């Protein structure tokens, strides 16, 4: 299977989808699904391969190369599968919306660009695909109009700053080593001075960090994720921002190299420790901001920032366990966060776009399957044992503890408790509590939505029970980075300082559940009653009047709100205001009176001549 063909299918599919949309909507939908499925199959068939192919002779003298190895395969398969599921989900979600051809074609373009990013074998093609990814994402984020415009703008500006930093980095590398292929640059980097390597890391770090939304580059993510169409939010949160993770992995362990990376720093401050601390901040702050969000998608968006913190913490901590945990968490987060965004999408679809946590409730009665997958997704997000999130977080915690970094571990663990708070709020305010009367006749989510959600929830449990499947792949990647191998077993990790065995837990859980269930059923039977028939100390609980989902964590909010200002974001906004003010002030030199303009010309001339005569610089 050639990589060029894969990309041609991906990019060509995107274009054709748009053109087909002009012919017939049904054909287009079928074609989009087909293309995305084909991509999954093609990527899957590349499993275990490692090779490189030049595909473009010389772009301004720089040859472009594609390559595949374990790392890029992992990201490619995640991107293509999530992309495919998102396209399927869109079939229902986008029905009746305007400009659907554009939507599908952009969605496929984003997927294609992501595949391009992970399959690039040199930094220039990486950058090119990166930029294509950025602008197509911008178009999709802005798609909904209204508040989405500001969100898209913020995304674009921040991501553009990042990619320009990356451009500077790429071209600096080209200037130094004359090649941009990973192997060549890696060879050059091994003998480069630490200061140089650090500068390169920072330049690229801005780009990858912005995409991955680590603090303090996270400001674009909450609005962008919450305003984008939900199936795209799933892609965005699930895989697109993970391109930053890919970039970091590539940079740290392929280009810079493990040993250099770990020893890098200014004085006693090690770079990777600083990055870990940033990761910890990225966990804590957004988690607690997420708790007080009232928009379901914004809550998930902040949660995404926080989870990105875990990933960064994992991969920058730089032990074999932590990097494996970081990579695994990327995969897991892709699965469960996509799932949760789809859940919101399904709810949005049935409630005509309502995602305000204060006005939903009780939907478990109307959308039971959606609720079940939501619970599974939330469990994965929290990291409940026997779901995938547990394993990856466990790996990260364990290595942090064993490497004597209790404060980072505290941030990670405490972040999890925050996660419980917002996850429960998410579940409760959408699915539990009273069902408002206006949703009483609501239908279930359509099949095209349930299918991807179900698949994802199965994966959440599967990876939780048999984490060895993905961990084996991740372990190979880790070994290729130069880490020692983990002792991966199908159900966990065997090690001296505390092993992980999910099968034991599974058995215990099943036995426990069955036993308790039997005991429970042995008691007196209960009568099924409607939900309004509840105990209220003798008073009737009125419908639609009394809903304790509003201000769910009010006491905590009263305590914490003053400390949870997103000052980074307000700083950026103020900065944008300043720039606009500066522009507004500057343009006042063009006064409109031609006499002033004449004066500018003559003064400029006079200054030129005066300077020359006074100092004769020439």
């Amino acid at each position, binding site marked *: 299977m050639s990589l060029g063909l894969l990309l041609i299918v991906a990019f060509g599919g995107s274009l054709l989808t748009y053109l087909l949309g002009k012919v017939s909507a049904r054909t287009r939908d079928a074609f989009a699904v087909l293309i995305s499925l084909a991509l999954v199959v093609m990527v899957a068939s590349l499993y275990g391969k490692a090779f490189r192919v030049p595909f473009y002779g010389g772009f301004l003298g720089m040859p472009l190369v594609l390559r595949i190895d374990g790392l890029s395969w992992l990201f490619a398969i995640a991107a293509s599968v999530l992309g495919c599921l998102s396209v399927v989900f869109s079939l229902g979600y986008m029905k009746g919306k305007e400009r659907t051809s554009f939507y599908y074609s952009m969605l496929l373009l984003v997927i294609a660009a992501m595949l391009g990013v992970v399959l690039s074998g040199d930094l220039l093609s990486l950058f090119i695909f990166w930029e294509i990814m950025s602008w197509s994402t911008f178009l999709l984020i802005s798609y909904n109009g209204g508040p989405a415009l500001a969100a898209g703008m913020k995304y674009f500006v921040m991501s553009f700053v990042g990619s320009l930093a990356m451009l500077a980095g790429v071209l600096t590398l080209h200037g130094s080593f004359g090649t941009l292929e990973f192997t060549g640059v890696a060879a050059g980097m091994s003998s480069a001075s630490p200061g140089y390597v650090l500068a390169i890391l920072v330049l690229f770090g801005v780009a990858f960090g912005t995409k991955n939304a680590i603090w303090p580059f996270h400001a674009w993510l909450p609005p962008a994720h919450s305003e984008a169409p939900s199936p795209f939010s799933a892609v965005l949160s699930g895989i697109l921002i993970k391109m930053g993770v890919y970039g970091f992995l590539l940079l740290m362990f392929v280009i810079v190299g493990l040993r250099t990376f770990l020893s890098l720093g200014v004085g006693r401050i090690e770079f990777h420790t600083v990055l870990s601390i940033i990761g910890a901040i990225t966990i804590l702050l957004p988690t607690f901001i997420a708790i007080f969000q009232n928009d379901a998608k914004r809550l998930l968006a902040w949660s995404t920032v926080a989870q990105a913190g875990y990933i960064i913490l994992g991969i920058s901590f730089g032990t074999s366990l932590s990097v494996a945990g970081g990579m695994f968490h990327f995969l897991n987060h892709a699965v469960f966060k996509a799932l949760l965004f789809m859940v919101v999408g399904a709810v949005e679809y049935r409630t005509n776009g309502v995602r305000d946590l204060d006005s939903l409730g009780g939907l478990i009665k109307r959308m039971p399957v959606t609720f079940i997958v939501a619970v599974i997704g939330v469990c994965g997000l929290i990291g409940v044992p026997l779901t995938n999130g547990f394993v990856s977080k466990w790996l990260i915690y364990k290595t942090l503890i064993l490497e004597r970094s209790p404060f980072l571990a505290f941030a990670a663990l405490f972040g999890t408790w925050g996660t419980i708070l917002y996850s429960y709020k998410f579940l409760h305010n959408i699915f539990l509590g009273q069902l408002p009367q206006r949703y009483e006749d609501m239908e279930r989510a359509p099949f095209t939505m349930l299918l991807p959600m179900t698949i994802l929830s199965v994966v959440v449990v599967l990876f939780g029970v048999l984490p060895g499947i993905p961990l084996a792949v991740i372990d190979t990647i880790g070994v290729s980075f130069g880490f020692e191998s983990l002792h991966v077993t199908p159900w966990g990790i065997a090690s001296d300082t505390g092993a992980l065995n999910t099968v034991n837990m599974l058995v215990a859980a099943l036995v426990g559940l069955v036993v308790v269930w039997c005991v429970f059923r042995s008691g007196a039977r209960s009568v099924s009653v409607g939900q309004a028939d509840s105990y209220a100390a003798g008073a009737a609980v009125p419908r639609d009047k009394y809903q304790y989902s509003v201000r769910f964590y009010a006491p905590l909010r009263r305590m914490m709100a003053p400390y949870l200002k997103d000052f980074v974001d307000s700083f950026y906004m103020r900065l944008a205001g300043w720039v606009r003010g500066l522009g507004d002030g500057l343009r*006042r030199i*063009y*006064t*409109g009176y*031609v*006499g002033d303009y004449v004066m500018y010309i*003559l003064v400029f001339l006079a200054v030129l001549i005066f300077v020359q005569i006074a100092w004769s610089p020439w």
Partner: protein
Amino acid sequence: MSFLHDYVYYIGAFGLVAIGLLIILVKRNLIKLIIGLSILDTGVNMFLISVGYIRRGTAPIFSRPGLEPDGMVDPVPQALVLTAIVIGVAILALALALAVRFYKTYGTLDLRKAKELRW
């Protein structure tokens, strides 16, 4: 006095240029401004002429025997000035045409009144 004598044409030329620039700088009336431009142009043309001018030189035509190239006025600047004059006239014509339109549109020739395009 020989300085003045030698450079009188240059002084004159730059005097005209200075007057022209001054008018353009301080006047707000479009017509006066155009007049300023015209004076500036004249000054520039005069400057060009004086570059090639030789006192008591002859026309650069070998019309009579005994004429030496050394004593001839440089013909190139004259050719240049001819062209420059033509260009100047073109600009002048266009400017005056615009001035008419300007007056019709704004009802005034004061350029300070025409500040709609700014910033």
